[in-house]
């Protein structure tokens, strides 16, 4: 059953420039929805990918990109809507079916066998390379494959000896070699240096020229501007819009990505009388590299005061979390110093930061902030077990810990009869309430909170925000890392905008408009300190 798809795709979506009418897209999604318990991962997503185009998908973490790609590659089945391949409705029973249909994905974490050679990896799962293979045959095959896609490999090198960019090339050749016509790349330049990026671009353009379609998942606006023909912005599982790439500025894209929700009834705190002798957390030229040696935080210097909410904004992955973890003592700067209330805390253990009264709400509560298999009692004591009444140098007082847990549970407003029950049984919202209550009690000086609104419903969000404001009003300092611009604008006394590991600007209340911040987040524009 052939249907004219150019009509069925929502009219808001422009076809790629110069594309002939009447040819169906290689793959179209029509009204695709996917739900998980309590979460709308995708809702009514309609998108078309045409042969000969590079289509970028842009969206914050949790915008639904991954779920959508899992549907396209046959890992999930949509709860509603359908996939249309070359004009015919299809349903993928599994990843095999998607691969057979010519859909291939280059994952952020490569799916190669590290101990196998390049040639062996390329031959893996190939129908034409079954049975007993001589080494010569294998090598000849691999060379042929590499050449076909314009790469040169030492095909007998073992994959584990290759650099990340080389592995990525092998992965691409492998996916293409299995007959992919639609190539999906997830953050492909995250592991690449500048020269390798241009090589990748060239390869993708070649693939496009031969009639292939590319889906490019990326946070990087320059990348999208340089490479993509069309851009689709996703937010909260839905398509915001699809644009021809040339038609929109990076600032406009960021604005779309982070949303235009009206600045409504967020509790805008009253400004406090400023006391110049307030205690601070002071960063002095701190830098930090990640495990692979890339600079995640460029020299940053700033003072964060007690009695203010210091917002940190930016597109995800621009160094905000690394900065927050340094403030809480979870990571140490490679250079530079951290002072808390005048005391040098550089390189001190986490426990010392807790003792100084710095609470920390990590971004991933279940993985980082809680031990899911342990009870609320153990989790309530997680960062205070060193000190009486719960503990001491050697002791652990179960009764005191239970009392402490009950106190926190009451404060957090969680309905929980038995604190010994594992916290994984709590709802996501309650887990976050527990963490926030625990860390607020620790925070006699400062609370550092990473994305505290994630996964909260509206009511809980309201409570969380009031709690942050209450901390500030009682003279504690709050560092709020958030992807929600409205939240930042409403709550923060000052907002630091990060891009590429740098603090681009620190803007006071009223100095910052959405547009300014959007421009700073996208790495463009400049602000005054």
């Amino acid at each position, binding site marked *: 059953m052939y249907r004219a798809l150019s009509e069925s795709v929502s009219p808001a979506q422009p076809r790629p420039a110069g594309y002939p009418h009447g040819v169906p897209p290689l793959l179209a999604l029509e009204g695709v929805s996917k739900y998980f318990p309590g979460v709308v991962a995708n809702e009514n997503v309609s998108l078309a990918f045409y042969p000969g185009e590079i289509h970028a998908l842009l969206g914050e973490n949790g915008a639904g990109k991954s779920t959508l790609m899992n549907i396209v590659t046959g890992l999930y089945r949509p709860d509603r809507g359908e996939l249309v391949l070359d004009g015919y409705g299809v349903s993928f029973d599994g990843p095999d079916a998607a691969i057979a249909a010519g859909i291939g994905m280059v994952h952020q974490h490569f799916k190669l066998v590290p101990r196998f050679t390049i040639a062996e990896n390329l031959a893996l799962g190939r129908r034409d390379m079954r049975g007993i293979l001589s080494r010569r045959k294998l090598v000849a095959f691999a060379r042929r494959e590499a050449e076909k896609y314009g790469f040169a490999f030492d095909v007998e090198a073992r994959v584990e000896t290759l650099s990340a960019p080389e592995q990525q090339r092998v992965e691409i050749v492998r996916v293409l070699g299995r007959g992919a016509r639609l190539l999906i790349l997830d953050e492909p330049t995250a592991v690449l240096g500048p020269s390798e990026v241009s090589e990748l671009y060239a390869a993708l353009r070649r693939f496009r020229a031969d009639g292939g379609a590319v889906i490019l998942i990326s946070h990087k606006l320059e990348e999208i501007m340089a490479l993509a023909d069309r851009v689709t912005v996703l937010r909260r599982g839905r398509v915001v819009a699809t644009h021809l790439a040339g038609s929109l500025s990076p600032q406009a894209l960021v604005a779309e990505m982070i949303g235009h929700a009206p600045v409504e009834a967020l509790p805008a705190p009253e400004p406090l009388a400023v006391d110049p002798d307030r205690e601070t957390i002071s960063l002095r030229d701190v830098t930090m590299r990640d495990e692979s040696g890339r600079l995640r935080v460029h020299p940053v210097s700033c003072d964060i005061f007690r009695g203010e909410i210091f917002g940190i904004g930016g597109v995800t992955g621009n160094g905000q979390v690394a900065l927050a973890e340094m403030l809480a003592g979870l990571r140490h700067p490679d250079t530079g110093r951290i002072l808390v209330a005048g005391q040098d805390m550089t390189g001190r253990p986490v426990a010392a930061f807790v003792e100084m009264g710095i609470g920390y709400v990590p971004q991933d509560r279940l993985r980082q902030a809680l031990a899911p298999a342990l009870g609320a009692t153990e989790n309530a004591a997680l960062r205070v077990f060193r000190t009486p009444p719960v503990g001491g140098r050697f002791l652990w007082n*179960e009764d005191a810990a239970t009392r402490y847990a009950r106190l926190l549970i009451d404060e957090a407003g969680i309905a929980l009869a038995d604190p010994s029950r594992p916290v994984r*049984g709590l709802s996501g919202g309650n887990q976050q309430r527990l963490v926030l209550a625990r860390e607020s009690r620790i925070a006699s000086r400062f609370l550092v909170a990473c994305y505290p609104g994630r996964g909260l419903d509206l009511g809980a969000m309201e409570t969380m925000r009031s709690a942050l404001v209450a901390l500030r009003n009682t003279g504690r300092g709050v560092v709020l890392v958030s992807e929600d611009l409205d939240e930042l604008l409403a709550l923060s006394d000052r907002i630091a905008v990060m891009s590429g590991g740098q603090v681009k600007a620190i803007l006071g209340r009223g100095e910052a408009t959405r547009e300014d911040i959007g421009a700073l987040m996208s790495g463009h524009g400049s602000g005054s300190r």
Partner: protein
Amino acid sequence: MRGEGRQMAVISFRRIVIARMIAIGIVFLLVAAGIYGLGLDPGMVGRLVVTSTFGTRFGLENLALYMTPLLLTGAAVWLALRAGLWNIGAEGQFLAGASAAAAIGLSGGANPALAGSPAAFMSSSLTLVLAMTASFLAGALWSALPAAGRAWLGVSEIITTLLMNFIALYMVYALVTGPWADKVTGAQMSSARIEVVLPAFAGAVHCGWPIALLAVAMLALLFRRSRFSYCLALCGSNPEAARYAGIDVGRHVFVTLLLSGGIAGIGGMIEVFGTVHRLQGGLANGYGYLGIVVALLARKSALALVPAALLMAIILNAGIVLQTVQVSASAVLAMTGLLVFAIAVADDYAAWSRSGRAS
């Protein structure tokens, strides 16, 4: 069916007990069927096992002697499991501890002329204390390499502790056929007799049995009242959160595996000085591996190590009885395997509730 139900976050004690009773019942039925298949009367064999284990003083004493090493290797494995670590090397640590203790015991040598005098008592007490200390250190040392690998390099302790067992086994073989070979009686694969012995507790049962029980009780106390146990639980449950709590996960992993090895090592000393009185090739008798079973049976409670060790002791005793009716000694291994399998399934099923009464 299973998809309909929900996995419960907390499994009640009652559910576990019921599920395990069913599992053990099924194992007994299977063993009975096996015995029947061998042309024996399961009823007769069963009566024989029960009467010879519980009906005689010798049987009861034997149970206590079997329990002693099992309690200690079980405690060793159990302790590591609190931190989410699998010490498969209790067997080797047991042998390392036994060897170190034997070295002390063989070098001392009681002077027959002083027998019964206070000086002899002092000297043998000193030997025992030294031997116990040495066995603890040797067991800890035997797990130090796997412990360091796991703590700081991320090398799986399951593989390395297991491999250390073979090194320990052949080290013991080398010792008892070489430098320490018994030249008096010419016994194969055995050292000379060690004259210092653990004092008797009751009948043939030496005081290693109360010592092992005491060790388990101390472990239970430690895990109710210490900050260390809390840190271990955190490391085992979520290392990422442990780091966030300011716990040095690597150091805790290292110390735990060392302690675990030390406890197994003491088991070796008690076996040498209490039961066997020699270092022998087959000394460990699989106690290290059975300790894994004991620890799994005990789940989260240290005190549950006692009934768990008792159950394993009964099975070992049953194995001897079965041999007297011409059933292969390997039957014990088969029974243990069946039991572990059945218990694992039972525990999992106990966690599932069809009505979805999950917390």
